């Protein structure tokens, strides 16, 4: 479905992506987890042909997308029709209505009028925005704008959906709502490539996770495998103003350790943050 081989991106003196290799399977929800500046958005920009790679190859459904952006080649048009993109920043036409934004997207993707209108009705109901069809985008809340961006990306029925930090800046309730929507999209057979720096987002949604740090992929595995490498339970203790976790395979071991020490601890389950921390020595956020 998505195949990335030896991908490199160099911006002037910054080596933003270093020999990235990825293979995302059909119908999979693949999360790309890393701190700000790790290279997540650069990867998505290359995968969606918004940015040219310095070297390496990228194919989506067998279509090579390198240098395909904004060109006349029919191959490029086909590869673009495979992809839906929800970028990190809100890029809706604020002065236009919800309906008009979706209409323009449909026109850009060469959809006929009846197909377009049918899809708009279907998607607005899907993202729970039917009642706001005629509202101007600038009148919508942040969560509504995010849902509209997801609906817009699904307008042309892409087989791969790229979500670049889809819940950034949203409150916890709205974030959960968007997660539910993302799960629903995946259940309908769409492959999803998600970048995030929210640990719980990757844990909740992803089938597999790639850890990215300073432009390099450290590991690719399922969230449960990544976490189980450390154990199941973690005890946080404060050492010189810094929380240091200790990992245990079961709760009993952790409780025994607490009983043997004359300190106070916080007991919790191991999460992806721990896995990331153990590999990089730093937190994702």
């Amino acid at each position: 479905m998505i195949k990335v081989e030896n991908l490199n991106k160099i911006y002037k003196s910054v080596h933003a992506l270093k020999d990235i290799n990825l293979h995302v399977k059909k119908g999979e929800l693949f999360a790309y987890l890393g701190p700000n500046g790790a290279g997540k958005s650069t990867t998505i920009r290359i995968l969606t042909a918004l940015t040219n790679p310095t070297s390496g190859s990228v194919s989506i459904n067998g279509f090579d997308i390198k240098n395909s952006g904004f060109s006349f080649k029919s191959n490029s048009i086909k590869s673009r029709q495979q992809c839906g993109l929800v970028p990190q920043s809100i890029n809706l036409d604020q002065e236009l209505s919800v309906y008009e934004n979706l209409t323009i997207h449909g026109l850009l993707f060469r959809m006929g009028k009846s197909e377009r209108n049918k899809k708009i009705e279907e998607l607005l109901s899907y993202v729970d925005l039917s009642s706001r069809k005629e509202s101007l985008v600038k009148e919508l809340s942040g969560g509504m704008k995010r849902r509209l961006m997801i609906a817009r990306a699904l307008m042309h029925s892409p087989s791969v959906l790229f979500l670049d930090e889809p819940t950034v800046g949203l409150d916890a309730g709205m974030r959960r709502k968007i997660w539910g929507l993302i799960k629903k999209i995946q259940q309908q057979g769409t492959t999803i490539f998600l970048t995030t720096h929210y640990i719980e987002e990757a844990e909740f949604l992803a089938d597999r996770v790639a850890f990215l740090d300073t432009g390099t992929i450290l590991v690719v595995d399922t969230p449960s495998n990544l976490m189980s490498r450390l154990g199941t339970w973690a005890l946080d203790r404060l050492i010189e103003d810094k929380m240091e976790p200790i990992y245990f395979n079961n709760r009993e071991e952790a409780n025994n350790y607490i009983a043997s020490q004359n300190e106070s601890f916080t007991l919790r389950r191991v999460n992806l943050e721990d896995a990331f921390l153990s590999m990089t020595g730093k937190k994702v956020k």
Partner: protein
Amino acid sequence: MIHSLLAVYYREMLIMRRRLTRLIPSWSVSPLLYLIAFGYAMGKHVAIDGHSYMEFLIPGLIAMNSMTQSFAIASEINIARFYWHIFEEIQAAPVNDLSYVAGEVLAGITRAILSTTVILILGKIFGVNLSCNFMFWLGVLLNSFVFSSLAVGLAMLVKSHGDQVLLTSFVITPMAFLGGTFFPLENFPVWGQNLIHILPITHAAKAIRAASLGNTPQISSYIVMAATGCLFFVISVMCVKKAKD
């Protein structure tokens, strides 16, 4: 290609329709001030080549206005690109460079034609009836083609909206005043006339004025505008590629 072109154009038209109640007054203010200050107050007793100064001024204003309004799409593109990131949405769609530039240029031409209509109405209010024949509209169309093509290219090259404002100040504003819009070029020394004849706006002002006053415009002016427009259009298509990254 035509689908993508129409999509880009349709987007611009939807935005223009939404802003029309604000745009029409803004298209009227500057020409109205020029007509009052230069045409009515200063040029009341001036005649040029057998025409009143108002008759001389309005075609010049039309040339100037079609230039500035078609060039104004550069600001729209920049705001969409730098502030709203809408350019990304178009880049991610199966839209080729040529269709994108053509759609934006067509939007610039539409904007120029609408603002020209506003000036013609103002002219009528001031009692000036111009001949709006085919050659007149062709002049307006080619002039706006030149400057909307230039606008798209420059909008792709600049790195911020501030740069765009500077370009308008250094490129468009001098042309607006020096291209034979407000006074006859014959008042300039010969070297100055030769220099000013390089500017496409000079040809636009000459062609539009001649056509609107019932004279026969020089075909060479139309050829210069068409050639310059095509050149800027091709450069713009190339600049869209550069805008990536």
